[in-house]
């Protein structure tokens, strides 16, 4: 009898830990002003909880209990150490204690939400490297283990641990604030945060040499981060747009790669494999993203394009004229060579390959993206459609020279082989 009770308490405790780990850490970082100290404090608080809750039962507000236990343990420890240290540390403890005392024990949910938002802005601060952004975000906000983060990026655990240590040291030494920036800075920084979340997603979505399982995990974490941001910053058009974009891309995941690991292009995918529940959620979010004031976000436009693709039951039913229009909107919002290239591909579906080739050639003539393999692949595709096989072959060979991912290289080789086969046959 006793055993079954303790098992069920363990189950509840585990569930509470899973649910509260992120919030407890975020608040402890604010109270203690240090990432490592906060992680230790959380660990000690969880250990104390396992011991005490089994006897005394789970407290009414477990989150507040864990935070105050963690804070008290660290303040105690600092106080014990102070006997051997300098006056500076004394002042630090006094201010940490004052901060801790100022924090209400049963703070509202929104206050904890603020702490998590602070943590997100700190981990994605522009003074940190791109590598550090993603590593810190996965470790500190998503709560992945260092080992799991290392595996996702195909580096050793030791390398990842060093990267995290360096990033946390920079936060401390450079005085990177643990703060959600005020407008107008907020509006710049939120794009940085979203870029990190999208970076986590595309890292998982790109067909790399990593195992498929890891890739799906990364996309799942990115979507979870998107949901968290949507919870913390409701009705933000860019957040809604990004979350919609990720869901609509992720819905197509089961149809993107063949069993042999080859890339399957959108037009050739088995549309019955698409995840309809993600599509439904994504479509509803796109609606909201496009109608939310005050301004259109690039993510919302990209999501709208993805929405048009997944709404077509057959590839012939795709609304290409509207997609061309959306790419033109996107080109005004955030001009880039990649957007121009995608625009040209959409134009080829409406006005034909000759017009699309003109667009790509004018992009290529500017020379900024001459090493971008997809530019050469698209040129090859248009030339092939126009029956200019010789030039198409040259373009595909250039693309092969710049492509690094094996599945993409296989696809290019297959195209080259198909043209050569035709030429040999005639």
């Amino acid at each position: 009898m006793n055993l079954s009770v303790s098992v069920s308490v363990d189950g509840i405790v585990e569930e509470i830990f899973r649910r509260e780990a992120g919030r407890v850490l975020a608040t402890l970082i604010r109270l203690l002003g240090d990432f490592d100290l906060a992680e230790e404090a959380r660990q000690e608080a969880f250990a104390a909880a396992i011991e005490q809750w089994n006897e005394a039962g789970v407290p009414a507000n477990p989150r507040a209990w864990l935070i105050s236990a963690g804070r008290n343990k660290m303040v105690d420890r600092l106080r014990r150490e102070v006997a051997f240290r300098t006056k500076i540390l004394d002042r630090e403890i006094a201010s940490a204690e004052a901060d801790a005392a100022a924090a209400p024990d049963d703070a509202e949910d929104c206050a904890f939400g603020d702490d998590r938002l602070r943590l997100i802005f700190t981990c994605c601060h522009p003074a940190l490297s791109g590598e550090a952004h993603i590593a810190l975000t996965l470790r500190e906000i998503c709560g992945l283990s260092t080992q799991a983060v290392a595996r996702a990026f195909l580096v050793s655990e030791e390398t990842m641990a060093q990267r995290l240590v360096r990033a946390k040291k920079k936060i401390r030494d450079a005085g990177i604030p643990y703060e959600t920036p005020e407008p107008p800075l907020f509006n710049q920084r939120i794009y940085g945060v979203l870029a990190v979340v999208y970076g986590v997603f595309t890292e998982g979505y790109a067909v790399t040499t990593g195992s498929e399982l890891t890739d799906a995990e990364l996309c799942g974490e990115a979507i979870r981060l998107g949901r968290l941001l949507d919870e913390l910053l409701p009705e933000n058009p860019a957040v809604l747009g990004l979350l919609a974009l990720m869901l609509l891309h992720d819905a197509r995941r089961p149809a993107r790669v063949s069993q042999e690991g080859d890339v399957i292009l959108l037009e050739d995918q088995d549309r019955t494999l698409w995840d309809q529940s993600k599509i439904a959620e994504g479509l509803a979010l796109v609606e909201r993203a496009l109608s939310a004031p005050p301004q259109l976000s690039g993510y919302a436009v990209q999501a709208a394009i993805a929405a048009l693709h997944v709404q077509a039951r057959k590839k012939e039913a795709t609304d290409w004229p509207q997609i061309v229009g959306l790419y033109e909107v996107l080109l005004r919002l955030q001009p880039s060579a990649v957007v121009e290239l995608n625009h040209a591909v959409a134009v080829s579906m409406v006005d034909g390959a000759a017009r699309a080739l003109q667009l790509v050639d004018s992009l290529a003539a500017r020379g900024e993206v001459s090493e971008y393999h997809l530019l050469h692949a698209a040129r090859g595709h248009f030339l092939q459609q126009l029956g200019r096989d010789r030039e198409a072959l040259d373009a595909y060979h250039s693309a092969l020279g710049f492509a690094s991912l094996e599945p993409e290289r296989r696809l290019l080789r297959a195209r080259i082989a198909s043209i050569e086969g035709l030429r040999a046959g005639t």
Partner: protein
Amino acid sequence: MQYLLLIYSSEAEEAAMQPAMLGSRMAEYTEFTKGIIQAGQFKAGDRLKPTSAATTVRVRNGQVATTDGPFAETREQLGGYYLVDAKNLDEAIAIASRIPSAKSGSIEVRPIWPPQA
């Protein structure tokens, strides 16, 4: 917290500046410096003479060795600095981005160790 803002810019480009340009750049600096003094952020700041006036000193085996020129040849050279008081890195970056030379050169933002008690 204190930050040292190191101003790197191309001496060659500056030497080639028209006098009118140079005059307006100087006026911008005066304006900027006044602003951070009024905001209570200014601790110190100076313009350096060009690297052609630099001497690099090293002591090896007790021997003082001097060489003509800066410590390292770079595309942009250290031409001046500000020492400022800022609440955190965001505030330091905001100050650095208003330094006139940030538009053409680069500003390195370096936090200062607090003095040992």
